[in-house]
């Protein structure tokens, strides 16, 4: 069973977590162009690499950020939003 380190609850089975995609800065919806907005809404970085992602530990509803190598599926570190490691 794969384990994920939750910043609040420690190591827990990955089945308790929900993946919510890569952490990406949103453009300002009021001022950006349609094309920039479409790029933000649809386009993704699908290539492998070390990425920062949103995850949620569902039993405790803890949202946090994980740094993960998406090719090797190895979690490098996790932290709560706002609390940069």
């Amino acid at each position: 069973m794969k384990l994920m380190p939750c910043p609040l609850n420690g190591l827990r089975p990955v089945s308790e977590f929900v993946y919510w995609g890569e952490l990406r800065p949103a453009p300002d919806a009021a001022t950006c162009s349609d094309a920039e907005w479409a790029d933000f809404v649809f386009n993704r970085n699908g290539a492998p690499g070390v990425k920062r992602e949103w995850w949620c530990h569902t039993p405790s509803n803890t949202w946090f950020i994980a740094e993960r190598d998406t090719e090797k599926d190895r979690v490098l570190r996790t932290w709560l939003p706002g609390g940069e490691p």
Partner: protein
Amino acid sequence: MPWRLLRFGLSRKHPEPRMFSPSGDLKPAYDVVIIGAGGHGLAAAYYLAREHGITNVAVLEKGYIGGGNTGRNTTIIRSNYLTPEGVKFYDASVKLWQDLSEDFDLNLFYSTRGHFTLAHTDSAVRTMRWRAEVNKHYGIESELVGPDFVKRACPSIDISCSGHAPILGALYHAPGAVARHDAVAWGYGRGACQRGVEIHQQTAVTGIEVKGGKVVGVQTTRGHIATNKVLCAVAGFTPRVTEMVGVDTPIYIHPLQAMVSEPMKPWLDQIFVSGSLHIYISQSARGELVMGASLDPYEVQSTRSTLDFTEGLSAHMLDMFPFLSHVKVNRQWAGMADMTPDFAPIMGKTPVEGFYLDSGWGTWGFKATPVCGKTMAWTVANDAPHDLITGFSLDRFRNYALTGEKGAASVGH
């Protein structure tokens, strides 16, 4: 037969023709370079040569022929989709499939089985009825059937699914079929080779040269090639290739896993899919049960497989077929599915002139192999999207005009 085999083995001449011509060195230039020697890439090469007379073509493959998702899918062929674009496209594919063995002079073991998509809830029944009506409108054999019909067709099924999720009905699609997937790649590959196409295995593309918004060449691990047209047909590797030309796409990669049981006597004629239980199953010509489930829940760009998957799938399989409890799992594997936000593929031209995409094939690529090859060959030869694929262009995301193919993979969404 053993005597003939021995004579063949000892013979110096090897009278059987080789499946593929030996590839030799790369030429300095080709009219078209196709990245990926899977079913899609080889089919495009085959139709480029056969229907458009373009034979100065190199198919580059970093692994071996049909070793990617072509050899990793669960071989189901059907056309009971939901959008008019999807239904027309996959119907054209099913019609091509039916003549393919003769086309190739190679037995693909194409076997029409009948395909059931089970509904366990009222809302699922409603979707099945919707799909059946769209299908009938386009002349495709699909109908909504009740649990009695399902039970008659497959007496071994537990209609109550252990009481958890009783089957209320199903979308029955009689032309649903299975075929040997590696034979498809080999058939297209041989046909393309016979017409002069070169297939280079163990040749990875490391870069694509673009000058003034146009493709001018390809860098490979075996040297440089000059070309003005590149077709990318690499499934789960698509983002790594689009990165080379600076084209942004919505494609994201999740693994899709599958497994087979030990071989059994034939007992399952049909193909069964259950969206609620997240499973699908058919029995191969070898007697193995070929089983799959929904996508892995998060992004991974590798073909690792997990025990979680085997456990979850087996548990749901026992809900439907309790007597399988003593049957062993023989092997499991994974493929990298290139998913799109609307569950429809991305095909055709891109902002880079001469760079064509055949991608976004997620969990639904195998069944489309022939029609993809045909329409992509047309698109590359004419530098304009074929009529059947205009709904699948990369532009649709920029224009907020998505295709919304909810009938795409039968499980998981």
